[in-house]
């Protein structure tokens, strides 16, 4: 990163010991461990993988014509947001001199069998996305990248809440997840999305709800 960037911020966050616990608030950043990410680019590629999954998920889901009216409009907009995140992360990685990971082969199983399965899977994706960004954010050394990641994280939280509401879930624990968002570890997130990632020869079984 440029020196200009460093000047904009107060020193280098990475110089401060990670995991400085401040009461109940420090619930996210310490989830990531040193072996999870070696660089900002690795964090960005991790985020990019998740965004690929989400963008393609909505592209297929919206094509399946499971929803109508306002609901459809929301899901189209969410899909456009995810596609935008893919583009943002890809270009950011390239600008940093890194190589963006390729898109994974995906199979969403029975997610598009019905409106309910579509929305339920979307809800899982969005909440995992929220947790993933929060859990990985502590690794990002460059503050401007952190700003962008935080900005994406907030939008994933919007998606999660609205999809939860479309499903008619209870407010607390369905639409909101408490007074504080919780980070998810990389291993937790990858385990959650693993059923959707396939190699070309293998198709996963449909997920059921």
């Amino acid at each position: 990163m440029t020196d200009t960037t460093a000047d904009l911020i107060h020193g280098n966050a990475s110089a401060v010991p990670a995991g400085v616990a401040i009461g109940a608030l420090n619930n996210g950043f310490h989830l990531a461990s040193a072996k999870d990410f070696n660089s900002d680019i690795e964090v960005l590629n991790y985020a990019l993988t998740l965004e690929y999954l989400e963008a393609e998920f909505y592209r297929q889901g919206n094509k399946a014509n499971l929803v109508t009216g306002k609901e459809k409009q929301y899901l189209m907009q969410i899909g456009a947001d995810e596609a935008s995140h893919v583009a943002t992360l890809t270009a950011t990685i390239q600008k940093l001199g890194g190589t963006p990971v390729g898109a994974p082969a995906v199979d969403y199983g029975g997610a598009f069998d019905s409106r309910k399965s579509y929305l339920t899977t979307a809800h899982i994706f969005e909440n995992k996305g929220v947790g993933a960004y929060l859990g990985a954010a502590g690794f990002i050394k460059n503050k401007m990248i952190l700003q962008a990641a935080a900005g994406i994280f907030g939008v994933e939280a919007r998606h999660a809440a609205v999809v939860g509401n479309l499903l008619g879930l209870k407010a607390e624990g369905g639409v909101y997840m408490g007074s504080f968002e919780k980070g998810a570890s990389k291993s937790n997130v990858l385990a959650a999305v693993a059923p959707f990632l396939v190699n070309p020869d293998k198709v996963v079984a449909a997920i059921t709800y």
Partner: protein
Amino acid sequence: MGINKIFGGRPVLEFADEHSRRSFLRNAALIGVGVTYVATRPGDPVAFGNADRGFKNDAAKSDLDILNYALTLEYLEAAFYTAGLKAKLLKGRDLELIDPIQQHETDHVATVRKTITDLGGKPVAQPKVKFPAGTFTSRAAFLKTAGTFEELGVKAYHGQVTLVKDPALLAAAASIAGVESRHAAIIAQITGGNPFPAPIEANLPMGAVLKAAMPFIAK
């Protein structure tokens, strides 16, 4: 790798409408890293950059200053929802969705206060609040102001991301900011607004936020 050639050559970037396409292009064009971090247009809602947007004044603030700033906004929000719920303007699903927000804001106040104290700082006193006439006279008026508060809160938190020094505090702020984003989206959804105004949360410097909050603080 070309972003138009992923998923085995199938296009991913398929837009529902012209608005979505433009929104995408705007975001893609401002990718703010490595060069200037400045948006292509002043006031761009998804600008990452600090330059010329009022953030220079914020740069001298300490983490405690930032925490007290957040605390002030949380005080306002908590007081707002407490008064709003007391006015009994909502029922059914509306009430179910708004009721937890009051608790969230109250929890944010308590946690931010405690964090300031833990760090050896002194929490600012709760400001005297006043809500403009008519704020609590109808569901529509209450929710409209709620939406204003929430979107402002989101922009306020995102405006400080690059300025907080302690990573643990940043984690804390982020975990609160995400909740404010949920609130903002839900209020927009139930009032017929746009729950997703931009693909990346917008941000504002302290001065602009406090100016917007002034009508709610009694002199």
